[in-house]
């Protein structure tokens, strides 16, 4: 794997007249868990969409696994897309397919035809996100909000990605399940050396998982580094985000888990 699975070089984003990002430089080192934090509406989701090529930057360049996103033949691009998994903020499950078919979909597309193998793999992925076989035949509309998140995570994990992009993975999960999520990501990270980029407002999870933190504020990356370093940066946003009473308690809890 290249040293930086995701690299943004001077990326700017504009919607109409408003600039959401201004010349963002960010290189995510391989094997790190990077937490992307920032106030609501600062463009975290938009930045993830830039990374996976759902949005074209107005300026700058995005490199995935060391190459520009749209480079190479169709087969190369497809192979590149299969190396990462993305969890969308709203889940984005296929509403016409049941849970089983949702998770099996990328595997079938990959070319796994053996139904027995498929079934075992899907049930394993569901078990990894603490869902039993009894939900496998339900439709997405019949799931709770937190279950949607977990099925979407199982789908993102289906192709054993080297890079995971997670948009608020623990929003809507109970504390027990959040802890389970932390354990799962930590185990995958240890076993396979995954690179993870996660957007989160959940400081417990952040403190427990993140090896680095990127702070997005006013359209640029304010700071990027290990949590301890970030905590020392003098800035009103960081002050409010990390140093409030509730934040301190959450961070302490997370460190205990970590």
């Amino acid at each position: 794997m290249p040293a930086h699975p995701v690299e943004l070089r001077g990326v700017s984003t504009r919607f109409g007249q408003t600039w959401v990002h201004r010349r963002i430089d960010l290189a995510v080192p391989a094997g790190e868990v990077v937490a992307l934090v920032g106030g609501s509406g600062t463009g975290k989701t938009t930045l993830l969409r830039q990374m996976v090529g759902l949005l074209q930057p107005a300026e700058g360049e995005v490199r995935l696994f060391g190459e520009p996103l749209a480079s190479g033949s169709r087969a190369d691009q497809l192979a590149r897309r299969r190396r990462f998994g993305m969890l969308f903020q709203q889940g984005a499950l296929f509403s016409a397919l049941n849970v089983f078919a949702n998770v099996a979909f990328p595997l079938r597309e990959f070319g796994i035809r053996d139904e027995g193998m498929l079934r075992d793999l899907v049930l394993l992925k569901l078990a990894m996100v603490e869902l039993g076989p009894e939900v496998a035949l339900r439709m997405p509309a019949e799931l709770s909000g937190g279950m949607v998140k977990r099925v979407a995570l199982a789908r993102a994990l289906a192709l054993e990605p080297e890079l995971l992009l997670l948009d608020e993975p623990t929003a809507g999960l109970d504390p027990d399940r959040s802890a389970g999520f932390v354990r799962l990501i930590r185990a995958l990270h240890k076993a396979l050396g995954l690179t993870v980029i996660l957007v989160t407002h959940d400081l417990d999870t952040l403190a427990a998982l993140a090896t680095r933190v990127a702070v997005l504020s006013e359209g640029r990356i304010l700071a990027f580094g290990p949590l301890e370093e970030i905590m020392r940066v003098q800035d009103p946003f960081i002050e409010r985000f990390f140093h409030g009473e509730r934040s301190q308690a959450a961070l302490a809890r997370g460190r205990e888990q970590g």
Partner: protein
Amino acid sequence: MRVCLAGDWTLRFLGPRLDALQGHLRGVGGGAGWDLSGVSRLDSFGAMLLWRHWGRRRPEGLVLPAELEGVFGRLAELGEARLEARAPYRWLDGTAQVGRGVFGFGRHVVQFVALVGQLCLDLVYLLRYRGHWPLLEISANFYKVGVQAMPVIALVGFLIGVVLSYLSALQLQLFGADVFIVNILGFGIIRELGPVLVAVLVAGRSGSAMTAQIGVMRVTEEIDALTTMGISRYVRLVLPKVVALTLAMPLVTLWGSSMALFGGMVSANLQLGLSFDFFLNALPRAVPAVNLLIGLSKGVVFGLLIALVACHFGLRVRPNTESLSANTTASVVSSITVVILVDAVFAIATRSIGLPR
């Protein structure tokens, strides 16, 4: 026998060579000893492949590095998880399918009647509380289904008129009965073709849009949001569409029929040399005015039915994309069928009105 594995056992690496690999695995007999200490990376796909080969248990004499324990631990925990199997197809299922179809149709009828009944109740309510009429929505819908439909209806109507007139003129010329083109076009278009043609266009254009709109609001829970605000979906969503289309359809029909007549007139002028003056003077004498009334009443009824059918199917959409597309299709097909059935009823009911004897 002793099997030593090495290298990457990951989906990315194994995927392209899966068939060959499974061939190799099959070649390994039961009592083999396994040594995984050379494996550099093992993901859950590779682990699952081995696990299934081992018959879902650790083989005897397995050498497993400590860092791989986790993956196999998870597999052992999973055990023999089973999906509910789907029951196999039996010949009785065909009968059940027919029965379900019949009951399904029955439910459609009941729900449709319930929808109409609910609208009537809401109308009574709105007669008492004048201020609650959704006038803004009615006007917006009127603009969408009426005004914005005018160009396409004009184009289609004009062309149909030209074609009809051209074909009829060819026949009439044989008999030297040129002037009867006015009767043929007048009766055909004003009484029959105009209303049906416009209804088919509107069902395809506005009926589908109504079903899709209400359906998407179901998918995205917007209807639930309205309900929690105490706003009736019937008053705010269904009624404006029904009222607007019922009011707009006769006008759109008039517009469509006029355009078709205009097309016919132009064509008759070119083909038969009938002047516009003559055509316009002969039309009221050939076609009694009551035919226009019949045509416009058809417009009202068709508009009402199309909107009701569209809303009926829209409210049946379940929150997934498949159901949305199925209901939109069903909405258009049903409303066109209903329009043609009702047109036949009209033809029988008005058979002694406005026709030359």
